[in-house]
């Protein structure tokens, strides 16, 4: 029993690690989409900033500087997205897709030019990355039955970005629901004409929203390459940006629900890694490939209205044209 309990806790621990980039990107998506700008470029922004973070960390050895540069790069991509979608009223899906494809080409191209290691960055060690933080007394109380392992395995031993991600949910929730800025942001995504009539710039609000999204994606990218991982490998986001998008939709564009969706999708991922080839009664051999497809299947079912009701922002995807 104790062995099973430990395994379970380790799975929960892994869930948090896997869910961290999802949570950050889902919050990014919420900011952007609640303001009316579709953002399928979470993936590309995360990939590009993962590369930037790993490059800077490898050259300077400063993880905090790497994080900053990662955020800068991601925000730059956000601004391109904004320039195309807000200023030039281009198609938001096309723009997002362009950024994703650009990022997968550019990371490998620059990676080879900078480091000549087939698109990877040098392996990072020690102080070059964010290491796990062992909370006080973790080892001392590990042996206390039941609660000890929870503290030692699940709560302690995460790097700082895991905590930033959880904090981001709280902040997103407060900003969205409890501040004037949040109210305006949501209004811009529901009925931009009304916001415009009130004398608030729709364009400015939307730019602010995509910039915040850029910051959050930048942190997520840095997490992948200099906190969770130890360097950049090509295509290292591996669809996580799209899973985050799915989680955001599954959470109905709301921060807390999106957090739960991210944790659920992260849990599926963590379980899938542990059950490959396991024989279960009645079901037969478990396939981790199919478990990994579950987030997408669930999102499709949710969107189709079979569980709950999806309510996207009313003005999403529609460029705002000011009346003359």
């Amino acid at each position, binding site marked *: 029993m104790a062995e099973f309990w430990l395994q379970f806790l380790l799975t929960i621990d892994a869930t948090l690690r896997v869910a961290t980039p999802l949570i950050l990107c889902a919050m990014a998506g919420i900011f952007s989409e609640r303001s009316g700008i579709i953002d399928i470029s979470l993936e590309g922004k995360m990939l590009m900033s993962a590369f930037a973070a790993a490059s800077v960390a490898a050259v300077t050895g400063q993880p905090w500087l790497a994080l900053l540069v990662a955020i800068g790069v991601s925000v730059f991509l956000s601004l391109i997205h904004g320039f195309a979608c807000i200023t030039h009223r281009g198609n938001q899906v096309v723009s997002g897709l362009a950024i994703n494809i650009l990022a997968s080409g*550019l990371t490998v191209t620059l990676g080879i030019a900078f480091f000549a290691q087939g698109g990877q960055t040098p392996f990072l060690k020690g102080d070059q990355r964010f290491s796990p933080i062992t909370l006080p007394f973790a080892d001392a109380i590990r042996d206390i039955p039941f609660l000890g392992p929870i503290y030692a395995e699940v709560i302690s031993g995460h790097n700082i970005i895991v905590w930033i991600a959880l904090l981001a949910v709280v902040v997103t929730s407060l900003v969205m629901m409890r501040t004037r800025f949040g109210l305006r942001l949501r209004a811009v995504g529901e009925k931009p004409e009304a916001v415009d009539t009130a004398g608030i710039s729709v364009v400015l609000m939307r730019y602010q929203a995509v910039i915040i999204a850029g910051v959050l994606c930048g942190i997520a990218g840095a997490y992948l390459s200099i906190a969770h991982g130890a360097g950049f490998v090509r295509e290292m986001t591996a669809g996580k940006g799209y899973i985050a998008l799915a989680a955001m939709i599954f959470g109905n564009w709301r921060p807390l629900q999106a957090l739960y969706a991210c944790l659920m999708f992260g849990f599926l991922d963590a379980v899938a890694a542990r059950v490959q080839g396991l024989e279960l009664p009645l079901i037969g051999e478990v396939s981790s490939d199919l478990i990994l497809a579950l987030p997408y299947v669930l999102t499709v079912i949710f969107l189709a*209205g079979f569980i709950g009701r999806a309510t996207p922002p009313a003005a999403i995807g529609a460029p705002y044209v000011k009346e003359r």
Partner: protein
Amino acid sequence: MSTTLPRWIDIGVLPLLNILAAFIVSGIIIAIIGENPFTALGVMLKGAFVYKGALGYTLFYTTNFIFTGLAVAVAFHATLFNIGGEGQAMMGGLGIGLLVLALDAVVPAFLLIMLAIPVSALMGAAWGAVPGYLQAKRGSHVVITTIMFNFIASSIMVWLLAGTLMEQGQMAPETRDFAEGVGLFKFHEIAGMMGIKVARSPLNLSFVIALIAAFGVWVLIWRTRLGYVIRATGHSEKAAVYAGHSPQRIIIITMAISGGLAGMMALNEILGVQHKLILDFTSGFGFTGIAVALMGRNHPVGIIFASLLFGALYQGGAELDFEFQTITREMVLMIQGLIILFSGALVYMFNPMVERLYHRIVGPEKGAA
């Protein structure tokens, strides 16, 4: 977006300006890396058209892009955005694979090939029709659903190819080879039979099928009742309802046609070259279809030219691997991203500038007419 520019500028000059912008930015990035962009361009052009067999390879890639580009374009005419080309092509390939693996011991090769063509289209159509249905009847947005369907298709492929369908005693996730003769003729083989020597290349009969499909799409969209209704639905769903059509039905049909075209891309890769089912044979060509459709302005003729450009980019990009230490074919992905950005998302950026310039030269009265 209304424009006072004559047609030749709108469909000729502006798209060229957009591509030019994409290439200039690419050139700047190449220069930053420390290589000469013009040398790189030269290598790509030679790699795409001049070397032995190069043109065959270029047209081989072109074939993929014609299929996926047409798929995106057909959906665009009904203002549907199908980014599920990847998944639909995978399913097309899966259909071909299952059909051939099940029957190649008993059914003659020629008959099997004739069956494989509609099967690839039907499987792709099914994988496109479901998101279409979900949009039409359940209100879930086709963009998100098709993204999700790409991942679901990819998981199914991994599951099958690393499991049930994987050849015994094999480590790579692929099936056994199809029986001898189950494959589309290659051009160098056909030319050889006629006594003409042509360099070996993977170019096969799918190219002809793709051209026929392009003609078929032109007929469908501009010369049939269904095509008219598709375009009408795209312009205004309400108008289509008033005219007595069901937009829901049209959405499902359009997505099915779109998916079917994407599914046929598998003919080129699976039945034309691989002669077995492999993982990831779509290699992002479904997404490239979006760039192709945008550049080709959703017209089959434009799509063929855009496909040729991308075919040359892909084949020329492969050549970069050999010639340069620091530039690889991923450079092509970057250029592709920039092209989608400039000729898709920023498509109107140059309009005001060109308009001003045009009116200064021609005079406002004539331009406004």
